[in-house]
C-alpha cells in the first residue's frame, strides 16, 4: 500500500497515502478478502454518525478485484458505505483508502473511480450522449467523443443516445448512468442499486456487463437488497445490517447460512384459502396464515424450493397469483440472524 500517484493539480496538499493503521499482512486478512488477495478498497474501523444516529458502526473490510455485492436490507447503511468509499462524505472515525490513498478530496483517486449513484435524477435537458460526454470532459479524457461512443455502446444505448434524458425510462437512466461512470475506463466502479427499475432484458444486459468488468480485473462493488439478484453477478459479498458488517466472504457459504433462517413471503391470490391449503401441503412451506386483507403470509426454510413450488401449485390448483413478494422485515431478520451468529 505504498503506491504513489502524481500530486493533484488543484490540491493545496499532496495526495497523501491514507494513514492506514493495520500492517499489510493484517490488511490482507481483512473480512471480505480471499486469502492472499491484495485489497483495492480498504475500510479500517470506519464509523459514521449523524447526531445520535449511527449509520455505520466500526466497519472493517477489504475488497479485491472482481465483483463484490454489498447486501443488506433497506436502511442498513449500504448507500452510506458507498458514499464514504467514494469520498462524498467523510467518516466520523476510521480510515478509507482506495489503492492505498485516501479517497475524499483526492483527484488522483477520482480519475480511477466511477460511481453510479442511487438517485434517479440526471440532467433532464441533456441528451444521453451529452451527459456521458460531459463526464468524459470532466474526467479529462483525451478523446471524449470516442470514449462517449464506447461507453454508450457498452450499455447498448446507441439508439436512445440522442434523446433527452428527461424522457428516458428508469431502466434507461440507470444504463446511461453506468455509461457515464465507465466513460473514463475506471478500475474501481461503485454502483448503488443499479438494477432498480430495469426490465428483465436490461437487467440481464447489466449483469453480464458487471461480470465482464469484474473478469477484466476491475474492482466492482454493487449494492443491492435482493440476495437472488446479487447471486447472479457477485462472487463475494459484504452483508451490512444496522450499519454493521454482518458477514463477508464467499457468497455460497453466506447464502447457506441465510437459508437456515425462516423467510416470510406475502402472496395475493384470487382464491387465497384454496392456495393456502395447497401451500401447507408442500414440504417447502413451514407455516401459512391468511391476514384480514386476504393476503397469504407463508413461512419457509427453503426459499429456493418455495420459489419453484409457488407457480407450480398455482397452476395445479387453478389459482391466479396477483402478487408474490418477500417481506422485507423477514429479510432484515435473516440479516439480523447472521449478526447473531
Amino acid at each position, binding site marked *: 500500500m505504498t503506491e504513489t500517484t502524481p500530486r*493533484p*493539480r*488543484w490540491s493545496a496538499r499532496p495526495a497523501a497515502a491514507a494513514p492506514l493503521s493495520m500492517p499489510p499482512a493484517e490488511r490482507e486478512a481483512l473480512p471480505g478478502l480471499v486469502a492472499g488477495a491484495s485489497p483495492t478498497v480498504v475500510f479500517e474501523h470506519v464509523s459514521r454518525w449523524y447526531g445520535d444516529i449511527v449509520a455505520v458502526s466500526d466497519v472493517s473490510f477489504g475488497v479485491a478485484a472482481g465483483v463484490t455485492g454489498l447486501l443488506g436490507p433497506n436502511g442498513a447503511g449500504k448507500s452510506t458505505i458507498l*458514499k464514504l468509499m*467514494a*469520498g*462524498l*462524505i*467523510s467518516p466520523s472515525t476510521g480510515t478509507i483508502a482506495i489503492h492505498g490513498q485516501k479517497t475524499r*478530496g483526492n*483527484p*488522483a483517486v*477520482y*480519475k480511477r*473511480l466511477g*460511481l453510479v*449513484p442511487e*438517485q434517479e*435524477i*440526471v*440532467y*433532464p*435537458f*441533456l441528451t444521453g*450522449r*451529452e451527459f456521458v*460526454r*460531459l*463526464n468524459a*470532459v*470532466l*474526467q*479529462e479524457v483525451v478523446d*471524449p467523443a470516442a470514449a462517449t461512443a464506447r461507453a454508450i455502446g457498452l450499455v447498448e444505448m446507441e439508439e436512445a443516445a440522442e434523446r433527452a434524458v428527461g424522457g428516458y425510462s428508469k431502466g434507461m437512466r440507470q444504463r446511461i448512468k453506468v455509461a*457515464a461512470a465507465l466513460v473514463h475506463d475506471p478500475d474501481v466502479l461503485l454502483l448503488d442499486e443499479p438494477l432498480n427499475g430495469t426490465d428483465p432484458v436490461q437487467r440481464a444486459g447489466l449483469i453480464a456487463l458487471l461480470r465482464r468488468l469484474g473478469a477484466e480485473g476491475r474492482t466492482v462493488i454493487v449494492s443491492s437488497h435482493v440476495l437472488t439478484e446479487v447471486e447472479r453477478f457477485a462472487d463475494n459479498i459484504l452483508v451490512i445490517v444496522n450499519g454493521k458488517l454482518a458477514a463477508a466472504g464467499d457468497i455460497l457459504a453466506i447464502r447457506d447460512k441465510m437459508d437456515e433462517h425462516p423467510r416470510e413471503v406475502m402472496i395475493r391470490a384470487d382464491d387465497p384459502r384454496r392456495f393456502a391449503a395447497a401451500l401447507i401441503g408442500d414440504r417447502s412451506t413451514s407455516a401459512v396464515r391468511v391476514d384480514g386483507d386476504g393476503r397469504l403470509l407463508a413461512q419457509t426454510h427453503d426459499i429456493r424450493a418455495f420459489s419453484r413450488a409457488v407457480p407450480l401449485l398455482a397452476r395445479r390448483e387453478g389459482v391466479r397469483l396477483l402478487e408474490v413478494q418477500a417481506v422485507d422485515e423477514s429479510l432484515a431478520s435473516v440479516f439480523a440472524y447472521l449478526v447473531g451468529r
Partner: protein
Amino acid sequence: MTLATPLVWRALPVFALTVRQFLAGRMARVTLALALLPTLFALIYLVRPGDVTPRGFLTTTFQQLFLPTLLPIAVLLLATSAFGNELEDRTLPYLTLKPRARPRIVLEKWLAVLVVALPLLLGGLALTTLVASRGPVDTASRVAPETALGPLLGAMAGATVAGTVLLASVFLLVSLVVPRALLAGMVYVFAWETLLGRFLPGVKSVSIRHAAESVFVALLGDPDVTVEGASTLRGALLAVAIVSLVALALAAWRLRTMDLE
C-alpha cells in the same frame, strides 16, 4: 450550448451545463420578467408623465426600485439555483467526483450566472431608457433626450455590472452554506437591502446596494444625483472586488469540505 459548440463544452463544461440548466428551467424567464418590469413602468410613465422628466423617472426607478429590489432578486434566483438545483437533485457528485479544481467549478458557475443575468438586465435597462426618453423634454436642456440619457444609461449599466458581480458571488456562497438559500436570500434582500437600508443609514452603507449606488453616482458625475456617504469609484470597485473574491474563495472551500448526501 450543444455539441455543436464543442469548444465551450470542452473548455468550460460546468459553465456550459449551468447555462443550459438556466435556459431549460424557469429562472432565466423570471429574470427576464424582472428585467422588463422597469420598461412596464416606463410605459405607464409615458401615459401620465406629469412634470417628471425622463432623467428624473429613470434615476428614481433605478435607485429606488431596480438597485434595491429587482437586481438582487434576479441575481439571487440565478445564483442560488446554480448550485441549489444540483444539491436538490443530488447531481453535484457528477461534478465533484472528478479531477477538477473546486475553485474552477465555482468560477464556471459564477460566470454562467453573469452571462445569463447581465444581458437580460442590461437589455431591460436599455429598453426602459429608450421608452422613457419619449417622455416630456427637459426644456432647460439643450440636447436631445436620447443623447442626454446616454451617460445615465452608462452609469446605470456600470452599477448593474458591479452589483451583479457582487451579488452573484455572495449568493453562490450562500447557496452552499444555507439549506434554504433562496428564502434566506429573499429575507436578506427585503430586510437588509430594501427595508432597513432605507431607514437606517448605517445599514445602508454596508449593503450591496450602497456599493452599486456609489458606482452609479461616481460614473454619472451629476451633482444633483447623490448618495449619502457614497464611496469613491475606486473605493466602491475595490470593495466589490474584495468581497467577491472572498465570497468565491469561501464557496470553493465549502465545496471542497461539504458532505454530499
